[in-house]
């Protein structure tokens, strides 16, 4: 019975592989893929933000980093609009710029702050109207659902080459896990 029960839960793997729909940083065919499910208002995701930056710097073109939204809207009242603002910026070609702004300003995520960040990045001022109208809500929801199905168990959740990473979200531990199968 023990083994039956244990085998009845799948090993946590990304159900939606990184692909054309995703915001990626680095070559899509890089040997190492790091996928994050994150929430712009989550303090732990905020802690992970510089960690990911450091890892990107270390691994360069050997890494493809992808970010999907997982806003925990009951816990974080600003997370949904923040996620939609990043998606809106993405349609104007500045997803990562907005992504960085949001993580660097986690305590200022009111709609007027989002509008200001859009202006700072030289984006179309209608961005905030799109956010308020929920124009990018479906996309955020799709990310969120893919996470729920794929074994996301909180924020941030990382997947390395499609398999959930359960270790500590610090630079050394992540780098070790990332380079295990792809040594220098």
């Amino acid at each position, binding site marked *: 019975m023990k083994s039956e*029960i*244990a085998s*009845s*839960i799948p090993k946590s793997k990304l159900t939606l592989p990184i692909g054309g729909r995703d915001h990626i940083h680095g070559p899509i065919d890089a040997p190492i893929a790091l996928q994050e499910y994150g929430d712009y208002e989550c303090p732990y995701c905020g802690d992970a933000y510089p960690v990911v930056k450091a890892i990107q710097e270390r691994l360069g073109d050997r890494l493809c980093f992808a970010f999907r939204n997982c806003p*925990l809207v009951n816990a974080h009242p600003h997370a949904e609009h923040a996620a939609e603002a990043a998606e809106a910026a993405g349609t104007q070609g500045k997803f990562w710029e907005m992504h960085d702004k949001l993580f660097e300003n986690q305590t200022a995520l009111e709609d007027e702050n989002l509008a200001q960040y859009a202006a700072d990045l030289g984006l179309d001022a209608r961005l905030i109207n799109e956010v308020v109208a929920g124009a990018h809500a479906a996309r955020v929801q799709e990310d969120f659902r893919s996470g*729920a199905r794929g074994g996301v*168990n909180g924020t941030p959740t990382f997947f390395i080459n499609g398999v959930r990473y*359960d270790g500590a979200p610090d630079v050394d531990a992540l780098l070790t896990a990332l380079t295990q199968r792809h040594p220098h």
Partner: protein
Amino acid sequence: MTKPTSQNNNDTVLPAGTPAPEFSLHTTPDQTVKLSKFRRQPVVLAFYPADWSPVCGDQITLYNELLSEFQNLGAQLLGISVDGVWCHSAFSQNRKLRFPLLADFEPKGAVARLYGVYRENDGTSERALFVIDADGVIRWSYVSPVAVNPGAEGILSALEELQHKVEAK
């Protein structure tokens, strides 16, 4: 709190195919919830060791966010731990929970014992999940290591399978 032991109730957890034992537990000081009240819809019974402890917090917070996914599959989610009603009520308000937490408090852990997921040495339940069908039969059960948040994929798959069976009838 004592450190959780490595013991695990994988051998005692009620398996799929077992009728889910009936229970009636307090969810607030003046409200009780009876399992049989939810006949005609699937129930997700999520045992967790304690309110407030970080991993449970994440797990319960995650389920709260996923409530609409469970509801889309027709299911009622119930959280259950050995904490008392006042503790549950403070935890629930703090995390803005939108599903009931049941107090398996007196006699302590009685329902966890019924389901084979009580940890004698720790005085808490396992982190154990049950999906119960509309006829009150357990269709899926899973015991996670106490320190690991099991996420929701197993629950969602089990509920989807139930839905396919109902549609096939």
